[in-house]
C-alpha cells in the first residue's frame, strides 16, 4: 500500500477582475500587454446592457464593419452583395476599422449611432 501525500493546488485563485476593450490611444501590442490591458470588475461588467433590438431590417441602415482580420473585408463585401440582391430594402454601409482589430474606434461608433440602426461586426478568427 503506497503512502498518500498532501500537495498544494497549483492553480491561481479567481480575482473577479476581467479584461476590457482597449482605448483608441492604446500602444501597439497592448492587447497582449498586461501593463496596458484595461481591466474591469465583474460587478461593472455585469451592469452592461445589450441594446433593444429593432423590429425589422427592412428600411433600416445596417453598418457592415470589417474589424481587420484576414478576409474580413472580402466577407463584408460579399455580405453587402447578398443584401443588395436578396434584401434590397435594407441599406448597408461597409466600413473598415482604421485602427487595429483590438482597439476602440469612437469616431466610427458615433457615425453609426448617428446614421445607422444596427451593426454586423467581423470576421473574428
Amino acid at each position, binding site marked *: 500500500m503506497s503512502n*498518500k*501525500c498532501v*500537495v*498544494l*493546488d*497549483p*492553480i*491561481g*485563485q*479567481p*480575482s*473577479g*477582475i*476581467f*479584461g*476590457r476593450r482597449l482605448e483608441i490611444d492604446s500602444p*501597439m*501590442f497592448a492587447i*497582449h500587454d*498586461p*501593463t496596458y*490591458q484595461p*481591466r474591469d470588475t*465583474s460587478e461593472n*461588467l*455585469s*451592469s*452592461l*446592457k*445589450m*441594446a*433593444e*433590438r*429593432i*423590429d*425589422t*431590417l427592412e428600411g433600416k441602415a445596417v453598418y457592415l464593419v470589417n474589424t481587420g*482580420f*484576414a*478576409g*474580413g473585408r*472580402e*466577407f463584408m463585401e*460579399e*455580405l453587402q452583395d*447578398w443584401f443588395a440582391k436578396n434584401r434590397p430594402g435594407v441599406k448597408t454601409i461597409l466600413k473598415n476599422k482604421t485602427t487595429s482589430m*483590438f482597439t476602440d474606434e469612437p469616431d466610427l*461608433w458615433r457615425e*453609426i*449611432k448617428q446614421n*445607422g*440602426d*444596427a*451593426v*454586423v*461586426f*467581423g*470576421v*473574428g*478568427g
Partner: protein
Amino acid sequence: MENDYGIPTAPVVTARFADYVERDKLSHGMALRFTYPPYPVGWVPRETLHRYIEGNDPITGIPITQEIDDALTRPLSDFERNFKAEKRPERPRLLEPDTEENLHRMFLENGWTDGLPIILPTEERVAEMLTGTDRKPDEYVGMMSVTTHEERLQYNVEKCAVIAVMAGCRPEHFPVILALGASGRPSMPSSTTSFASMMIVNGPIRNEIGMNSGLGALSPVNYANSVIGRAWTLMSICFGDMRPGATFTATTGTTINYNNMCCAENEENSVWEPFHVRKGYKPNESTVSLFRGWNVLTQGIGPAQRMMEVAKNLGGPFGGSYTFLLDPLVAKSLKHDEGYNDPIELSKYIAGNLQSPMASPERINFVVVGGETNPMWVTTDFSYFQTVSIGEWIPKDGIKHDEKSLRMPVPVTCADGTCGITIE
C-alpha cells in the same frame, strides 16, 4: 455599441472559434449573439465566401443571413437582459491526499504541467522554497490570464513557490520566479499565431545562482536557466489558465514555449552597457527583461550592414521588431571595427533602413550572449516589453543557497589546448 450607443450588433466569428467565443463572452457581461460562418475566411476565393454566406452556420445549422437578421431583430430574452460576468469559485489550498503516482497522473491529466515530469509541491517542499524570500506566503504577487478578456487568476508568494517546486527550482532561484510573477505577463498569450517569449536576466544574481550567459546559454546545459525558464511556462499554464483549444489557440505552437529562451546576459564579456542599464536600471540591480515575438529567424555572421539586410528581408507577422542576440565577439567588432559605441546607434541604423512603418530604434534591441567560439548573432522577431526588478524579492540577508548548490558542469576554458582532454 450595445451598451454605450444602444445599437444592436451581430458579431461574426468563424466556427473554428465558437467554443472560445461562447466561453469568452461570459467575461464581457453580455450574452452577445454570435454568428459562426465556416473556417477559414482569410485567403480563400470569393466564391467560397459567397457559399459561406448563402449557407448555414455549421454550429447551429441556421442559415447565416437568417442568423444575422435574428441577432439584430429578435427581442431580448430575460436571460440576455440579466446576464452577469461571474467570478469563479475559490480553490482549495490543498488537493485531496493521494499517492505520488496518482498525483503525478492528476497533474498531467489536468493539464497543469508542460508534459515533462514535475516535482510534486508537497507542504514541506513549498515551505523550503519559501525560505528563498523574506516575503510572507500570503502576500499578493500578481494576476495573470493568457486571454485578453477572461478573469485573471491571482497568486500569492506561496502559489509562486508551488510553481517553483514543480519546475525543479531551488530557493536560490525563487526571487527570479517571484519577479516573473510580479510582471503579470504570461509567456504564451492566447493567439492563433504561435507566440514565443524570451527572458534575459541581468545583474549580480546571474552569477550568484549560477546562470549561464556564455557558451550554449540558450541550450539545455545549465540548471538555473532550465528551471527558471520552465517555471515561467508552468506559471502561464497554472496562473494564466492556459488550456489547449480553450484559451490556448496557437496553431503550430513553438518549442520555445518549453523554456522561453531563459538565459543571462554576458555582461563580463560585453563591450556595451548591460541591457538593463540601457533600460534605466543600475548595474548592481538584478532584473529580468521580458520579450515576446514568434520566431528565431536566422543565425548570422558579418557586420552591421548584414544585420540590417537580414532584418529588412525577414519579419514576423507585424514586422519592424527585432531583438538580436550577439556573441560578445560581435559586439566587440561592432564597437571597435564599426564605431558603434552605443547599441542605440546600431538600432537607429537598422530602423532607418527598414521599410516597415512600425520600425523604430526602440523596437530593435541587442543582448550580448555567448561563449566567444564564433562571432555569430541570432536574429529574433521579438519585441522588448518590460524589465522587472528582482532585488525586492531577495532576502535581506542575501540569496538563500543550499549548503552545496546544484551546478551542472561549466564549459571548460583553457589556454593550453588540453580543454576536455585527459592526457595519460
